[in-house]
């Protein structure tokens, strides 16, 4: 398949005696080899721009500059968005915290959570069973008027807005009904609020102490720095009342 003539010619030139022509060719090829080796090493070196023309470098610089402007612009936009989002997040978190605190205090008011704070412990003795619901109702209103924030009776009945008082089922027993729950004398009413004001609420003329004693009972009031109102009011479903949003 290989052409014999051509191969012969190549072979002849390879084994031919060195002549002037051969020497010249040899030199030129040496130069070629040298230049090629040098160029290959140049390209191989670390400098990525070794052969690049100045004008190409300038163009590269310009396009990089444009890219940098674009990148800076994009970064500025993103930072603006992020700052705005951070601000609104902070605002929302503050609002959330406020709402949560509001909810906590509402739940305290509705008797869904236990409460703690300074206040008074009022003990009403009723040996004759003559202290009635009306007296207690009066007392509760007077206490509320004096800043009562949480009230419970006999560690069992939490008094909230919807709490109603009734006379006990058996008139012979000294008992009362609070929200369908029967409590027996002595009635221990624990009230959280300003202790001095609350104590005054029971002591003023015509107040609880006077009224109870007129009925044959006794009232003792003890102030406290830390009182726990831990009974919870029954959960009330609002079937008819709808919040107006």
């Amino acid at each position, binding site marked *: *398949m*290989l*052409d014999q*003539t*051509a*191969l012969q*010619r*190549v072979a002849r*030139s*390879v*084994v*031919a005696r*060195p002549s*002037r*022509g*051969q*020497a*010249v*060719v*040899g*030199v*030129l*090829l*040496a*130069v*070629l*080899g*040298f*230049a*090629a*080796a*040098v*160029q290959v*090493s*140049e390209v191989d070196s670390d400098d990525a721009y*070794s*052969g*690049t*023309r100045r*004008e*190409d470098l300038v163009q590269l610089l310009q396009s990089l500059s444009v890219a940098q402007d674009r990148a800076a612009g994009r970064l500025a936009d993103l930072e603006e968005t992020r700052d705005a989002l951070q601000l609104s997040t902070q605002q929302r978190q503050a609002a959330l915290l406020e709402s949560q605190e509001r909810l906590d205090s509402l739940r305290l008011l509705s008797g869904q959570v236990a409460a703690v704070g300074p206040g008074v412990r009022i003990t009403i003795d009723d040996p004759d069973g003559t202290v009635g619901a009306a007296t207690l109702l009066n007392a509760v209103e007077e206490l509320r008027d004096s800043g009562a924030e949480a009230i419970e009776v006999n560690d069992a009945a939490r008094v909230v807005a919807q709490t109603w008082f009734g006379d006990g089922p058996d008139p012979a027993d000294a008992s009362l009904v609070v929200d369908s729950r029967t409590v027996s004398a002595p009635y221990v009413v624990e009230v959280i609020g300003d202790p001095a004001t609350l104590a005054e609420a029971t002591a003023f003329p015509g107040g609880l102490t006077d009224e109870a004693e007129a009925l044959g009972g006794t009232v003792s009031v003890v102030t406290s720095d830390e009182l726990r109102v831990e009974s919870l009011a029954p959960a009330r479903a609002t079937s008819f009342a709808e919040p107006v949003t």
Partner: protein
Amino acid sequence: MIAVLGLLVGVLLGLFLEPSVPLALQPYLPIAVVAALDATFGALRALLDGIFDDRVFVISFVSNVLVAALIVYLGDQLGVGSQLSTGVVVVLGIRIFSNVAAIRRKLLHA
């Protein structure tokens, strides 16, 4: 024989001496090498055709290199250096291709 030896010596010298190319010549060196390669393949083809002449080889080698470098140098002065450089390399490349093809034809057919 000397030719092949010359090539080898040149390559080895280039690799071992590791000369640093002056800044101004850096863009022209690859052009020069490709132009020289074009002349060399032309010579190889002439050898296989039986019409090789060393004088012609020298002239074509030197003139190829100089003309190619001159064209690109002119281009640099005019501001179209990269483009002319590309053009020169393309044309030289096409010619190398056609010489190699001719060499292949010569070796494989009659």
